[in-house]
């Protein structure tokens, strides 16, 4: 509740500030204008294709990245050479910002969805693998032995013991992956704009700035914030239903 009042107060200061100082709306539009613009964009449905484009690229890249990371990490926990491979790759690629790979991606895949997906997958795989691996190695020896005692090995042991036991770490990995992927996709869209014929929210913001439609730029930013907050709530729900319910939260 207090946070809500703070939020409203901030908006009032913004509104009054703009109106009293007479800043050009092209530089900083007042919040009322931004919200009206946002309302218009939502009501006319102009924004939805952009949101959809961004989210669909993001989600498919997340799925690919997480699946690849799972395979790499399962190898790392089951075999010695897999562990070396995972250690080497994550140490090398984790510090490499995904955006830095964009020029290379453009060279390899051209201007389009595949380039975007390449950099997003890169931003997800290593982070997720590092977190999952940490989760796997901290699974109590006893729990693993319970599984082996039942005759479980290989992928079955990973699926029924390691993955659920490491779930708190896996969820942290997912949250980080999501955050990196989200930043990467918006940034990439801003840098090289259109992805084929379809653009995302980043592209929308870029295009609106080009036509000096600053309220629409702000509306785009609002959408980015709103989606981020929604995902946060979603993660909290998942945690409540799983790790917190099971007394496993870290």
């Amino acid at each position, binding site marked *: 509740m207090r946070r809500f009042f703070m939020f409203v107060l901030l908006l009032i200061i913004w509104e009054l500030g703009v109106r009293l100082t007479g800043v050009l709306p092209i530089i900083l539009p007042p919040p009322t204008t931004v919200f009206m613009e946002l309302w218009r964009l939502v009501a006319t449905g102009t924004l939805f294709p952009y949101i959809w484009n961004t989210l669909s690229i993001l989600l498919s890249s997340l799925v690919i990245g997480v699946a690849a990371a799972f395979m790499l990490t399962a190898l790392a926990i089951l075999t010695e050479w897999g562990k070396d491979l995972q250690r080497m790759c994550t140490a090398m690629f984790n510090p490499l910002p995904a955006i830095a790979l964009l020029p290379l991606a453009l060279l390899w895949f051209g201007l389009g969805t595949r380039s975007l997906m390449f950099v997003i997958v890169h931003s997800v795989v290593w982070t997720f693998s590092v977190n999952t691996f940490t989760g796997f190695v901290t699974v109590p020896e006893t*729990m693993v032995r*319970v599984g082996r005692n039942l005759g479980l090995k290989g992928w079955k042991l990973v699926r029924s013991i390691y993955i659920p036991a490491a779930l708190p770490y896996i969820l942290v990995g997912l949250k980080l992956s999501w955050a990196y992927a989200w930043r990467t996709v918006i940034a990439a869209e801003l840098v090289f704009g259109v992805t084929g014929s379809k653009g995302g929210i980043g592209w929308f913001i870029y295009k609106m700035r080009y036509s000096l439609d600053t309220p629409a730029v702000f509306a785009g930013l609002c959408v980015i914030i709103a989606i981020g907050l929604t995902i946060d709530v979603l993660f909290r729900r998942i945690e409540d239903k799983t790790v917190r319910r099971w007394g496993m939260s870290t």
Partner: protein
Amino acid sequence: MSQVKLRVESLSVRFEHGSGSHLAVNDVSFDLRSGEKLILLGPSGCGKSTILKTIAGFIRAESGMITLDGRAVTKPAVDRVVVFQEFDQLLPWKTVLGNVEFALQATNRYPAAELRERALFYIDMVGLGKFASFYPHTLSGGMKQRVAIARALALDPEILLMDEPFGSLDAQTRSILQQELNRLWEKTSKSIIFVTHSIDEAVILGNRVVVLSEGPATVRRVIELCQPYGDPIKHETPGFVATCREIRSLLQVAL
């Protein structure tokens, strides 16, 4: 007399570590008879737990032989189910019922329709019928160990391997569970190997006690307990006290 269920013959276990290796178990031999409770008793860190884990197949022997009903065993399997000391032997993401059902299901030995009924039967047997839908983190330590015992019994193993299962419990709970284990043993007549460092526990639970030396573990002596001391009233009797004293002096020689 009853026949031999499990035979351990001149078992030695060596641990390798960075700079070298050390011998944890040195030429240990003993038999587990069918339907008896055999206690492995020794000071902390003597290697008694290592012997149990080797029987379970988690640790590889350097030399020697372990045979179950005449067949050599080297790998973990459900014919030798372990009850551990650590509470995290229960899977926290599964309920009490879920834990037992999961174990039964993993063995592929029981038809899906029977899983629930069988699991509930054993949960009832350890007195946790009302807690079947609870998650482990909401249970006390003693209850968690009961669940682990129920899960082990439900799997109907050839032998039950218990690695200081009551070691993390308070004295009162521990005593209750000791009586409980005796009761369950009478009901199921399982062959049990039970590891402990407590002389009292050994005498209360055991049919026979293998007294081990300080590490590397060697067998000091195997003591036959002719009268059962399971009933708490008998803990004050001269026989109980004398047996404990005898074992204590053996352990002191070992030191």
